[in-house]
């Protein structure tokens, strides 16, 4: 580690440690929910990052189609890759929490359904990439798929909650009334959201660097032959 360049990594580490501590000690528990509220501080940012990654991937896909430059594909691919990891983390952590509170790991709650669809889309994206041999075609087709999926998602956001309410009239989800977040909870929540976003951007940069370096190395090897 080089202190001159890496100071912000250390800062980020300290910041996130602070968030964890605050989540357990500083933030109050929501009345009805007990200790498990604290999952919110980590689970929601994961889902947020997964969505953000998906957005970034689609944006770079459009850029790739317009500019036809390899680095845009590297960004789109990396973002989807990290997005998939966060989607899995959000799904698993959500399921554990659901087991605790609903007594079932999975029950097609609208939010679970949404993240499951996101998971499906990511999985399809990588399945497509691995099935196309030529690099340019691969990048192009993946970009197109990403854009089509991106167009679909808003529809799902609109339909899923409606359909699942009407198909499964579940009083647990349907009841009216809202809880406003406590000020302290809000502070910790947004701090965590910020920390996760920075961490995501850092990972994204690393991943892109790796991809581009690998490319460069491979083309060096090919030309030497």
């Amino acid at each position, binding site marked *: 580690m080089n202190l001159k360049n890496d100071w912000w990594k250390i800062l980020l580490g300290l910041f996130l440690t602070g968030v964890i501590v605050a989540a357990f000690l500083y933030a109050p528990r929501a009345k009805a929910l007990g200790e498990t509220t604290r999952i919110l501080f980590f689970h929601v940012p994961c889902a947020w990052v997964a969505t953000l990654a998906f957005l970034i991937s689609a944006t770079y896909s459009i850029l790739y*189609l317009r500019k036809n430059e390899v680095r845009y594909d590297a960004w789109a691919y990396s973002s989807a890759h990290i997005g998939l990891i966060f989607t899995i983390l959000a799904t698993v952590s959500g399921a554990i929490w659901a087991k605790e509170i609903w007594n079932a790991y999975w029950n097609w709650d609208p939010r679970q359904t949404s993240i499951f*669809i996101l998971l*499906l*889309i990511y*999985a*399809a994206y990588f*399945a*497509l990439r691995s*099935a*196309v*041999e*030529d690099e340019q*075609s691969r990048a*192009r*087709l993946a*970009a*197109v*798929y990403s*854009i*089509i*999926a991106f*167009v*679909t998602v808003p*529809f*799902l956001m*609109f*339909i*899923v909650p*409606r*359909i699942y309410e*009407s*198909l499964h009239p579940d009083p647990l989800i349907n009841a009216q009334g809202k809880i406003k977040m406590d000020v302290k909870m809000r502070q910790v929540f947004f701090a965590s959201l910020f920390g996760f976003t920075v961490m995501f951007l850092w990972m994204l940069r690393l991943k892109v660097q790796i991809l581009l370096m690998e490319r460069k190395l491979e083309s060096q090897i090919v030309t030497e032959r």
Partner: protein
Amino acid sequence: MWNLVDKSIVVFRKDFQLEFRTRYALNAIAMFALTTLAVISFSIGPIQLDTNILAPLLWVILFFSAMSGLSHIFVREEEQQTADTLRLVLPPNAIWLGKWLFNVILLFGLEIIIVPVYFAMMNTQVENLSIFFPSLILGSLGLASVSTIIAAIISIASSRGALFAVLAFPIALPILFSAINSTRLSMEGAPFMDSWSDLQVLLSFTIIIITTSLLVFEFVWKR
């Protein structure tokens, strides 16, 4: 614009001639649909199913039948190495539109056979036809649109068969959700307005998929 429609009809006509001669796609999807239907009907026996199950079942059959045959339209060009020929003589959007039209007709053709058989075998009937027909037509249009663009994407990939369903499923979900819901309403005899929002979703989603496809198809088709 007119030129585009003319040319897409040229593509459609050629594909129709080809299909008429080989009957590959029609055979594949009709046999698939009938087999599935027979299996389902056989396994439930005399039990009368609830509309909550009947509606999804119909769309599951239609979806997987579409998955078994609608990719053929692009895969055939790739397999017989005629894709380059097509690429040389026609603009991409005319090709997409022509193939889309073919898939729409193919799916409608399948439904004319399969839907009456379905209702006969399941011993049930539609209470409100003014919901049923719009949902069936709009749902098929949507399904054909999604299938056509995804078929174009997978036509140069390896392991196409499995990939087609994997890629199409998340994209087709809004269609399935809405079409299943409105079909269920039509079976329960609900008033037309109840299905209004579902039909709206089906229509707008189909339009958006067609528009997006026309915007991006050029990149799929390019080598």
